[in-house]
């Protein structure tokens, strides 16, 4: 793995907010020399059909991702906590919305 500084036009991950009120969503990546340029190319490459009102770019090397081998300890323990979901609680039919 080369040092990030020496990589030419590193990869940037692009996130786009498609309209106000929505989260930024990952749409893909592109190469650029720095974050500013990545932002501009993201505009040219990922919003040609006015898909966005706001763009985030993140150097791919800066993303810290959970590993697959962590999956068991990260996510499985959450599966036995049905009490966190609304459907766990039964209400009488007469109460329609809660």
């Amino acid at each position: 793995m080369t040092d990030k500084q020496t990589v030419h036009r590193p990869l940037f991950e692009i996130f786009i907010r498609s309209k106000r009120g929505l989260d930024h969503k990952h749409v893909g990546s592109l190469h650029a020399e720095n974050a500013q340029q990545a932002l501009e190319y993201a505009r040219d490459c990922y919003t040609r059909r006015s898909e966005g009102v706001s763009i985030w770019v993140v150097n791919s090397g800066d993303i810290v991702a959970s590993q697959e081998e962590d999956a068991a300890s990260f996510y499985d323990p959450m599966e036995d906590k049905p009490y966190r979901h609304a459907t766990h609680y039964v209400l009488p039919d007469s109460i329609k919305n809660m």
Partner: protein
Amino acid sequence: MKDKQDDLINYVIALGDDSLILGQRLSEWCYHAPFLEEDLALANVALDFIGRAQMFYEYASQLETRVLKENARSADQIAFLRDTRDYRNLLIVELPIGDFAFTMARQFTVDVFNQLYLQQLVNSTDSTLAAIAGKAIKETDYHLRRSQEWMLRLGDGTDESHQRMEKALKELWGYTAELFTMSAYETALLRDGISIDRTALCSDWRKIVTELLQQATLKVPSDEWQVTGGREGLHTEHQGDILAKMQYLQRTYPGLEW
């Protein structure tokens, strides 16, 4: 009254020609750019210019209709069916794309000019021109942001990029004078607040361009030569090459729908 209408039509067509020919030149970069992201970015700029040309020609066509009724030309007829002497674009936009440095140097000098020009044109007493300018100025802000950054990167990049940039600036410098040259029809429209006084933009343009070139470690070329004539249809030989390609189908199969 009729003269005034002719002046306006000429003016609108000239602005359309500037946009179309530059758009045509920029289109030549499609699948020729130094990397894929830049390919897409350049195409966006080209699309802005061709779209702008279309708006100017549509307006010219409407203006002609007022005078000539059914004999008026459509936007496409104006765009495709004139000969070299009848195109009124500035010489600087018809020059070949050269290398990436030349394309960016031209773009930068024109973008700075366009920003200054359009900032005035949005106040034109002609509401259609003002509206077109309103749309174009947003595009131009982005074009300039890009071309300015490329000037810095290429000027202050490697020795080779620096040399290419200096060479490009020298080659096009004499054509920048025309950006500030008034045609007769522009001068005539000035009184009514329709057109813009180009000569008044020169010192601001110079200041902005000089500052950026210095920042990019580039020399401002000397003003030892100047060529003008585009507004009167006195073009370089390159204009004919552009038209030969651009008009090929319309000329080979006259009068058809496509």
